[in-house]
C-alpha cells in the first residue's frame, strides 16, 4: 500500500519543482522581453544611423555626378558654336563614366537653325557597345518632355523620377537634367545624363546590418529608384512600397522623429520584418529605406533563449536532485527524531512507572515513635530498574530493595510486576524466603531475555526487634549500631537466574537505635571522570563517619552518603539508578502499670474464666464499658481460635494470656504451643455475601482485626505468639 507520507512528500517535491520552473520561466520571459525591447531600440538607432549615413553617401555620389557634369559646363560652352562637336561631347561623357547609361544634349528649340527645330545629340551605352546618334525627331519631340519643360521654365537642375529602360525593362534609369548656357548667358540646351540606378544601389548595399537586410531608394512620388536584385527575400518589393506609400498604415516613429517604422509580415514566407524609412533633407524628396528581418535581428536572442532553456532544464534537474536528496535526508531526520521521541516517551513511561511505585512521603509513619524510614531513588538518564518499598502490616515492617538487570521499559515492567506480586504475597506471608521463592518462580518462568533481579527482603517485627531477611544476590546490607556491621547473607542467586533455586530465611535481633542501610549498585559502581568506582570501602568509610555523629537519622545518613558519592563522582554522568534506604528501629518502652498472666486449658468452658480475667483488668484500668466489651470480644475470639484449633482434637494443650498495660495502651499476648498458624495471614472475610453465600466460620479473626488497633503474630521456638493492642486512653 502506498505510504501516504511518501506520496505527500512527492507531491510537495513536484510542487517545488513546478514553482521553480515557473519562476525561472517567468524571469527568463521578463529578461527576454527586456532584451527584445533593447534590441529593437538598438535596431532603430542603428537603422537610423545607417539610413543617415547611406543617404549622405548617396547624396555625395549624386553630387559627384552633378559636380562632375557642372565642371564640364565650360566644355559645353566651348563646343556650343559647333553643333556637330556636341556628338563627341556626349560620347566622351558616356565613355568616361562607366556608370552613365546615356547622355543627351537637348537643344533649346531652333537653337541651330540649320539643324532644324529639334536637335538632340545622344550617346547611349548598350552593354559593351556605345552608340552615338541624333535622337530628336518629330516623333520624339523632347520639347514636350516634362523634364525639358521644367528645366527650361525653372532654369533648374534636378534628378528625374526613375523609369525603366526601353530596351531593357530590368534596368532602372534616372536622369539628371541640367540646363547649359552659352557665352551670352542664355540657356542653350538641357542636358540629360542617364544613370542606371544599379550604381547607386551598389553603394547602398555594400554593407548591411544583417545578412538579409537591404536598402531601397524611392523617389518623392513613391517610385522605386533602386532595389537590390536577387538578394532580397521578396520577389518584388510591392509590399514594402505599399507600406511606405500608405499614410494610413500603422507605423511608429523613431525617437528622433526622423525615421518611420513599420512592422510587417512577409506575404510570401510569413516571416516578420521591420521597415525603416527616412526622408533625407538633401536628397530632394527621395526616400531611403532599410528592411530587416526579425529572425536575423533577434537571432542572438533566440540563441540565448535556447541556451537559457537548456540551463533552466539543467538547473531544474539539479534542483530536483537536491530536493530528492534533501527530502531523503529530511525523512531520515524525521525518522530519527520520531524514534528518539518514541524512545524518550518510552523512557518517560518507564520512569513514571518506576517513580509511582516508590514511597515518596517522608516521614512515612509520623504517628509511630518506634520507627524512622527514609529512602531516595535518583533515576539515571537511561531508566534503570531500581526499586525500593516498605509498608507496615500487623506491626511488622516489610521492606525490600531491588535492581532489575535490564534497562528501560522491559526492566520497569518486570519491576512493576514483581512489585505487585511482592505486595500481594506480603499481605499474608511474613516469611521472607517464601516471598522470595514465589517471586523467583514468577521471574524465572518464561525468562527468555535472561532478565534477573537482585533483591533483598526484610521483615522487622516491631514489638520484638526480630529481623528476618532473605538476600537474593543483592549488595551487602549494613547494620549501623554502636559499630558498622555487615548483615551476614547466604549466597542466593538473583531472582530469575535459576527456576528451582531454594531460598532460606536468616534472622537477627536489632537493638534499640540500630539502623539498617540498604542500597543498589548505583552507589557501589558510581564512577568518576577517571572511571574509578566508589566501592564498598568508601561506603563503609562514609558510614563510619556518620556514626561519629550521635544523633544520626535515616535522612541524615542518606544525605551524607549521597553527598559523598556526589563529591567523588564530581560531575561525571550518572550511568545507573541510585537507590538508598535507611530504616532505624527506636522502640519506646513505656513503664507498665498493669501486668497479669493467665493460663487456660484448651476447653471451651474456660472462656468464662478468660472473660472474667479480661474484665477485671479493664476494670482496674477504669475503662469505659463499651470499650471494655469490645476488648473482651476481641480477646475471646482470639483465644477461642486457639482453644478450638491450635491443638489436634482430643489433645490437651494450654493457652497463655498475658495482659500488659501502660498509661495509654492495653496489650494482650496470647501464646500457644500448637500447630503453626498465622491468624494475620488469613484472608479477610467478605461481609457483603448473602445469607446463602455466607460461610459459618471466619468471623473470629475478622472481629479481632476490627476491634483492636493492631495485631501481630510471631512463631518463635515452636510457639504461636499473637499480640493485640488497643489504645484505651488519650
Amino acid at each position, binding site marked *: 500500500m502506498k505510504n501516504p507520507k511518501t506520496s505527500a512528500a512527492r507531491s510537495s517535491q513536484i510542487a517545488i519543482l513546478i514553482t521553480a520552473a515557473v519562476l525561472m520561466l517567468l524571469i527568463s520571459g521578463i529578461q527576454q522581453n527586456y532584451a527584445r525591447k533593447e534590441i529593437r531600440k538598438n535596431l532603430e538607432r542603428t537603422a537610423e544611423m545607417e539610413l543617415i549615413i547611406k543617404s549622405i553617401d548617396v547624396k555625395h555620389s549624386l553630387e559627384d555626378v552633378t559636380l562632375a557634369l557642372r565642371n564640364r559646363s565650360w566644355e559645353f560652352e566651348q563646343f556650343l558654336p559647333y553643333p556637330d562637336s556636341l556628338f563627341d561631347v556626349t560620347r566622351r561623357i558616356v565613355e568616361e563614366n562607366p556608370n552613365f547609361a546615356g547622355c543627351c544634349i537637348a537643344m533649346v528649340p531652333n537653337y541651330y537653325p540649320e539643324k532644324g527645330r529639334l536637335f538632340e545629340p545622344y550617346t547611349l551605352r548598350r552593354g559593351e557597345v556605345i552608340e552615338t546618334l541624333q535622337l530628336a525627331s518629330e516623333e520624339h519631340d523632347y520639347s514636350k518632355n516634362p523634364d525639358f519643360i521644367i528645366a527650361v521654365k525653372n532654369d533648374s537642375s534636378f534628378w528625374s523620377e526613375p523609369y525603366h529602360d526601353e530596351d531593357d525593362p530590368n534596368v532602372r534609369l534616372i536622369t539628371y537634367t541640367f540646363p547649359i548656357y552659352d557665352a551670352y548667358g542664355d540657356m542653350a540646351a538641357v542636358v540629360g545624363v542617364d544613370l542606371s540606378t544599379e550604381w547607386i544601389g551598389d553603394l547602398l548595399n555594400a554593407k548591411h546590418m544583417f545578412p538579409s537586410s537591404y536598402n531601397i531608394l524611392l523617389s518623392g512620388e513613391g517610385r522605386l529608384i533602386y532595389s537590390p536584385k536577387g538578394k532580397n527575400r521578396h520577389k518584388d518589393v510591392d509590399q514594402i512600397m505599399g507600406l511606405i506609400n500608405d499614410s494610413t498604415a500603422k507605423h511608429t516613429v523613431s525617437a528622433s522623429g526622423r525615421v518611420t517604422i513599420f512592422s510587417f509580415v512577409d506575404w510570401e514566407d510569413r516571416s516578420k520584418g521591420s521597415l525603416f524609412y527616412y526622408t533625407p533633407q538633401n536628397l530632394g524628396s527621395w526616400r531611403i529605406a532599410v528592411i530587416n528581418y526579425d529572425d536575423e535581428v533577434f537571432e542572438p536572442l533566440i540563441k540565448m533563449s535556447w541556451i537559457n532553456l537548456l540551463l533552466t532544464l539543467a538547473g531544474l534537474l539539479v534542483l530536483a536532485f537536491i530536493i530528492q536528496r534533501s527530502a531523503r535526508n529530511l525523512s531520515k531526520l524525521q525518522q530519527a527524531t520520531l524514534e528518539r521521541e518514541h524512545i524518550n516517551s518510552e523512557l518517560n513511561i518507564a520512569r513514571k512507572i518506576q517513580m509511582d511505585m516508590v514511597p515518596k512521603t517522608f516521614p512515612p509513619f509520623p504517628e509511630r515513635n518506634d520507627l524512622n524510614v527514609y529512602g531516595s531513588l535518583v533515576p539515571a538518564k537511561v531508566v534503570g530498574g531500581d526499586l525500593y518499598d516498605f509498608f507496615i502490616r500487623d506491626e511488622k515492617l516489610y521492606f525490600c530493595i531491588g535492581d532489575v538487570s535490564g534497562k528501560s521499559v522491559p526492566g520497569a515492567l518486570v519491576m512493576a510486576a514483581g512489585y505487585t506480586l511482592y505486595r500481594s504475597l506480603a499481605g499474608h506471608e511474613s516469611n521472607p524466603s517464601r516471598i522470595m521463592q514465589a517471586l523467583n518462580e514468577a521471574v524465572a518462568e518464561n525468562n527468555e531475555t535472561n532478565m534477573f533481579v537482585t533483591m533483598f527482603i526484610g521483615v522487622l517485627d516491631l514489638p520484638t526487634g526480630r529481623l528476618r531477611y532473605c538476600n537474593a544476590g543483592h549488595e551487602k546490607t549494613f547494620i549501623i549500631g554502636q559499630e558498622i556491621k555487615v548483615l551476614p547473607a547466604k549466597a542466593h542467586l538473583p531472582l530469575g537466574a535459576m527456576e528451582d533455586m531454594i531460598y532460606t530465611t536468616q534472622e537477627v535481633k536489632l537493638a534499640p537505635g540500630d539502623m539498617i542501610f540498604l542500597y543498589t549498585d548505583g552507589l557501589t559502581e558510581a564512577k568518576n571522570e577517571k572511571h574509578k568506582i566508589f566501592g564498598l570501602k568508601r561506603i563503609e568509610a562514609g558510614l563510619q563517619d556518620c556514626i561519629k555523629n550521635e544523633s544520626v537519622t535515616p535522612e541524615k545518613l542518606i544525605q551524607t552518603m549521597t553527598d559523598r558519592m556526589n563529591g567523588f563522582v564530581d560531575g561525571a554522568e550518572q550511568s545507573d539508578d541510585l537507590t538508598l534506604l535507611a530504616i532505624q528501629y527506636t522502640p519506646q518502652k513505656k513503664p507498665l502499670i498493669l501486668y497479669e498472666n493467665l493460663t487456660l486449658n484448651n476447653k471451651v468452658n474456660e472462656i*468464662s474464666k478468660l*472473660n472474667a480475667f479480661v474484665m477485671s483488668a479493664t476494670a482496674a484500668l477504669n475503662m469505659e464499658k*463499651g470499650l471494655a*466489651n469490645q476488648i473482651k*470480644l476481641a480477646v475471646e475470639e482470639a483465644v477461642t481460635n486457639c482453644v478450638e484449633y491450635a491443638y489436634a482434637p482430643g489433645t490437651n494443650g494450654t493457652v497463655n494470656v498475658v495482659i500488659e498495660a501502660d498509661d495509654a495502651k492495653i496489650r494482650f499476648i496470647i501464646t500457644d504451643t500448637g500447630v503453626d498458624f498465622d491468624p494475620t495471614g488469613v484472608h479477610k472475610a467478605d461481609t457483603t455475601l448473602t445469607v*446463602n453465600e*455466607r460461610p*459459618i466460620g471466619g*468471623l473470629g479473626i*475478622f472481629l479481632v482485626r476490627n476491634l483492636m488497633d493492631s495485631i501481630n503474630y510471631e512463631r518463635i521456638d515452636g510457639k504461636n505468639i499473637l499480640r493485640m493492642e488497643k489504645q484505651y486512653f488519650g
Partner: protein
Amino acid sequence: MNTNITEKDGKYVVALEGELDTAHAIEVEQAMQPLHEVSGKEIIIECTKLDYIASSGLRILLGLLKSAKANDNKVVLSNLNDEIKDVFKMTGFIDLFEIK
C-alpha cells in the same frame, strides 16, 4: 445465660438474657434446636437483656436464619443494644437480619 422460648399468637419469642460467649454457645444452640423444626412461623429473638454476643453466637443466629429460609420461617431480632448493633454492622450481619 438464659434462653426462654415462648409461643404467642402463632409467633415464637426467644428471649436471650446474659452473655452469649463461646462458653455458653453450645447450651444456647441446643435450646434453640426446636426452632429449626418449625415451619411457617415468625421467630422473634428478643435481645433486650442480651449484653454480649461473640462470633459463636453470631454463628448460631446465622444457622437459624438459614434453616428459617428453608422452612419458610421469618426471623426478627428486636431490641439489640448499641454495642451488639456495632458488631452486627462490623460483620455485615446488619444487612442479613430483619432488626427491630
